């Protein structure tokens, strides 16, 4: 095991030349080199995986237990795969605009930041509208949250994901508001990047849900 050179002793790029001593400087060095906020978000997302894991397992166990009597169709028999594919595509494309937003603030282009954030939020909104429409169709067909284990699990899982997307949209809109009030500067572009991490995670989870819940019979 090699000794780590004291990172505080090494002058960081951007430190003023007359930093008085070794224990500080403008560089708030972390042991890993990743900022606390970003590392914290990654750790948090690790936990989210298990939360969705529990709900996905529940759906897999229950997906064929659709109820008795006349209303006994499983979610698979009612899916409109084409419709959901389109809304999934919109959600996945929002990851692209999210990346463009991060890139914009890193370049210091505040207008482009707000434009791309708004585009991302809009696409998230389209996805949520699609989900609301889909839920409504199922409800009209007589399958509600309280119908049977399969339908409880379907609404529980996709609804939980929908809540996550909605929270993401609120975060995006908050970013726009904060940017308008001048609170997002180029040098803390990382805050946008961290919101982006959350947004990409929600997208990735949807890829899994779409595959496991919708595509695999």
């Amino acid at each position, binding site marked *: 095991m090699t*000794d*780590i*050179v004291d*990172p505080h002793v*090494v002058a*960081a*790029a*951007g*430190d003023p030349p007359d930093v008085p001593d070794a*224990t*500080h400087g*403008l*560089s*708030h*060095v*972390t*042991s*890993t*080199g*990743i*900022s*606390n*906020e*970003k*590392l*914290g978000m990654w*750790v*948090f997302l*690790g*936990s*989210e995986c*298990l*939360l969705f894991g*529990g*709900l996905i397992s*529940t759906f897999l*166990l*229950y997906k064929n237990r659709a*109820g*008795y009597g006349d209303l006994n169709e499983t979610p698979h028999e009612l899916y409109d795969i084409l419709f959901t594919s389109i809304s999934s595509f919109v959600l996945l494309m929002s990851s692209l605009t999210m990346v463009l937003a991060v890139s914009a603030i*890193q370049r210091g282009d505040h207008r482009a930041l707000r434009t791309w954030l708004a585009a991302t939020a809009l696409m998230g909104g389209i996805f949520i509208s699609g989900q609301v429409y889909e839920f409504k169709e199922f409800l009209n067909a007589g399958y509600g*949250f*309280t119908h*049977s*284990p399969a339908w*409880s*699990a379907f609404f*529980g899982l996709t609804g*939980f994901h929908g809540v996550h997307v909605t929270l993401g949209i609120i975060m995006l809109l*908050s*970013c726009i508001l*904060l940017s308008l*009030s*001048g609170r997002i*500067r180029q040098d*803390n*572009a*990382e*805050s946008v990047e*961290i919101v982006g991490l959350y947004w990409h995670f929600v997208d990735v989870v949807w890829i899994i849900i779409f595959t496991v819940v919708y595509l695999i019979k």
Partner: protein
Amino acid sequence: MASTDGTLALGTGTEAPARPMGVFARPRNTPGWRGWVTTVDHKRIGIMYGAAALFFFLIGGVEALLIRAQLAAPEGKLLSADLYNQVFTMHGTTMIFLAVMPIGAAFMNYLIPLQIGARDVAFPRLNALSFWSFLFGGVILNSAWFLGGGADGGWFNYAPNNGVIFSPSHGIDFWNLGLIFTGISSLVGAVNLITTVLNMRAPGMTLMRMPVFTWMSFVTQFLLLFAIPVLTSAQFLLLFDRLFGARFFDVSMGADPLLWEHLFWIFGHPEVYIMILPAFGIVSEIIPVFARKPIFGYPFMVFSGIAIGFMGWGVWAHHMFASGIGPISVAAFSVATMFIAVPTGVKILNWLATMWGGKLKFTAPMLYSIGLVTMFTIGGLSGVTHAVSPADTQQTDTYYIVAHFHYVLFGGALFGFVGGWYFWWPKVFGFKLSDYHGRINFWILLVGFNLTFGPMHILGLQGMPRRTYTYRTGYGFNFWNLVATIGAFMIAASFLYFFWIIWRSYRQSKVDAVALSGDPWDSRSLEWMVPCPTPAHNFDVTPTVHALDDFWHRKYDEDENGRLVRIAATEDVSQDGSATDVHLPSPSYWPFVLAAGFPFVAWGLIFNMWLCVIGGIAIVSALWGWVVEPSVDPEGEHGPHDDHHPTADDSPAEAEAGASEEAALVD
């Protein structure tokens, strides 16, 4: 959600900041109770964790005494069957979630930053949120006593017994919501402390130089991070079933009650390691100090802790041998359960080897640590007997199980915690607890403990079922039940004695105030380098670490014959806490306000949705206030010598600077 908000907070305040918005003026150096409510200091939060956990421990203890009083003699009349169900359910839930886990959190909060040489945790405000949501989660859970009765399905609340049909009172709703909010506390704490350990280490503090306590806490936090969300998802399912008519556990609609058991124990088994590993870490700190030897096999200690962390995920179904999961599952989980005894055994042997040939000093903390090693070994051995599934089918749901888990959690975790209190008390409060009384107290506790739980092995093997509220006189249970009840009251007496010791030692320290050195035990890790009690800024100068047990090596070396020689006086290598103008994280109201909204949401979901609106307003406004409040108060007082402080947002420029440093090091 909450963990993202800190990221939006503004920068270091060195440039002209936008005015923080909000209804509150930013608290600054507030004295009195407001200082505690707004604090983000990891030490104060640790103390509050400990105090609140002790309070809940007393509640859980009273519930335990009610149980034992009811069972003292056959045909007990103290509690009705219904009330007895509530009391044992709440006893288990309270002790696990509101006593043992937060006592561990108290130690971790206080000690991790000190042991790795940091000013504070990575996210001080999230740390405060973690405490307050634990406290309000506990309030939600216990408010059930005043609002229609506690949960009554056992601490695991198996389906379908947990449904509205079988448990029509709101007790299980309180249980659900209370534990969802303490789960938020655990999740936030895990994000925070994992980031702290990874990111906030002092120069030279490599992972393999961290004290064993920090390592075990680190493993614990990963277990929390991944186990708690599984419980949360199960509880969401149950919550929707009970409050909104979902069908997750409705057997009449084809639901499978085993789903609950699986989800619960996938959480529940890592949970037992969450409770025991911090105590393992504590005794791994205490034993080397009083044996005056380094911990034996440090890498083995660390890696067996990590191994427990991984293997803890593969043994959950040994709680379900009687549920009909099939012979292959039973065989696989039997073998896995036997295997997990190996890293635990490694730890026991390492503690023994640490003491072997050492100059043992039997102080109170050392006695409690040895108590853990011995009592946990008994509990561990009875644990291995559960791995033998044919035997387990006989033992399951009997008092044998009750005996087992009290030996590991009381004889293990709690003995370690009490030892830790005696050991770190001077560091936290600036006075020592009386060692003489501590040693007497240890023997009372040890005898009381064994009188209480030892006989339960026999009762269990005789066939006395768990959770039974009474028994008849001809069953042959009378004698040992009476002994167990006597033992339980001895435990209660020993804790009253403990509180008296605290009070007396405090008085003593006021009467003849002896200046306490920062290092009263001649110990090994960094927290002993700073004065007792720890100054608000922890370290005057961030220490640079050169070895495992760095502080010890600053005091001692070996001569050519391998004998220990002192090379420096403790005062010369300690810090005197005199630094001024150290920039500390700024206090904040928002964590408290945010968590104070939780009970209203919980009560609202149970009784009246309008209460949710009140809670929701508190939560949303607190989140917004939190986001726009700079994590470091731009108008807070700090001098020109503004030290490296942990809360500052690392702007990309700075992160890049850090990265380029890393690159420079690689070059």
